[in-house]
């Protein structure tokens, strides 16, 4: 476990350094940085870039743990912004995951009634009274 942590820290650090070298060469301030300091994207302070890289590492392992094909995970994590990656890392277990249609059987009747009252819409055949 500790070895894994150390390894990811090492990977993160090396990502950080390649990152900063690229920035130093271009000397352009990225739009993401500007958006962050303008408060439009949540700020990922420079000194916290190691942390951001670790966050991505977390998301990667959490996705694999939840059954996502490891071959897909790389691209999925790469598609996220820093802000999205930290959101995922914090909420992957609790954030609502859209997918289920229909509901558990034991509350069938309750949901049927709430459907008819127009509070819910679990069953396509119900017609709300309101």
């Amino acid at each position, binding site marked *: 476990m500790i070895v894994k942590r150390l390894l990811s820290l090492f990977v993160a650090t090396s990502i950080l350094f390649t990152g900063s070298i690229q*920035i*130093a060469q*271009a*000397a*352009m*301030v*990225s*739009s*993401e*940085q*500007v*958006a962050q*300091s*303008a408060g*439009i*994207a949540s700020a990922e*302070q*420079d*000194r916290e870039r190691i942390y951001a890289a670790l966050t991505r590492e977390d998301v990667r392992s959490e*996705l694999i*743990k*939840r*059954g*996502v*094909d490891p071959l*897909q995970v790389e*691209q*999925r994590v*790469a*598609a*996220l*912004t820093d802000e*999205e990656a930290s*959101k*995922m890392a914090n*909420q*992957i277990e609790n*954030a*609502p*995951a*859209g*997918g*289920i*249609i*229909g*509901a*558990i059987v034991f*509350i069938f009747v*309750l*949901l049927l009634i*709430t459907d008819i*009252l*127009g*509070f*819910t*819409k*679990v069953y*396509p055949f119900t017609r*709300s009274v*309101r």
Partner: protein
Amino acid sequence: MLLQIRIRILAFMFLLLGSLLSGCAAQGVREVTQNTQLPRQHELTATPFFPQELYQCGPAALATTLNAIDIKVSPEQLTPEVYIPSRQGSLQVEMLAATRRHGAVAYVIPARLEALLKEISAGNPVLVMQNLGLSFAPSWHYAVAVGYDLNKELVWLRSGTFERFEMSLSAFERTWARSQHWAFVTLPPGRLPVSIDADAAARALVAFEKNAPASAAEQAYAAAVQRWPEHLVLLMGLGNSAYRNKDLHKAQQALLQATQHHPASAAAHNNLATVLLEQGQLPLARTHAEQALQLAAEDPALKQQIQQTLADIQTKLDELDAANK
């Protein structure tokens, strides 16, 4: 006696239920039905339909919005991009990311029924997240809103296995409210939704720029700058993506505009200096870089970047000096 009490309790409960219902008579619904700006009805009948397979409403809804703007992709192709097996569903963040992976911009729209209907009337199908169940027995679901009728108070969605799923406006509003009214529209770079403000556009475009080809990013920012010509992030985005696209003239124009509207932005001056350096306008580049350094007083990371710019300019000046001797 006992019966009387029972009847009273029953009556009381009905009263309670009644007041509960009237209290909930979704506010947003009344607002939109009285709205005179919106067309009374509109339906995007040409929106394609992909019936969902078990738990796959995320990929199905994504395929719907992407194919609606002629990005040909099937739900089966999208499943490995968004689906999380042990959660039996897809997360909102990845729905946005997957949209961008296919070359489209995902704009989260304001959390209001009016904004959603406005987008539909402008021709943009809206991907929504609903909780079709109750807060304690959630049934999270993605669907695509494609039509409405304010007189009949109805909404139509491409939803699950139903090509034209009909819901009353108020039932839709309640199920949608449970996701904090989360919704986004999918558009190709160069087109903008009608309901968003400049900050929301900037948020979507910065995320898009990150993994998009420079030309697509430039095109997307250019359209946004046309609508909001003074927004710092949008101008910077246009300048940066034009620079990345080796379009130095456009980059210089946009960044100059950024420094004019936001004279206190160190980032704008620094990036303008970088572009000027590449155009060979060294004295002007140095002026802007020095100005940037002054403005960046409290930001060590930014300062470091600007010092790099200044060093690059100095190197170039030295080279020219050496060549002249």
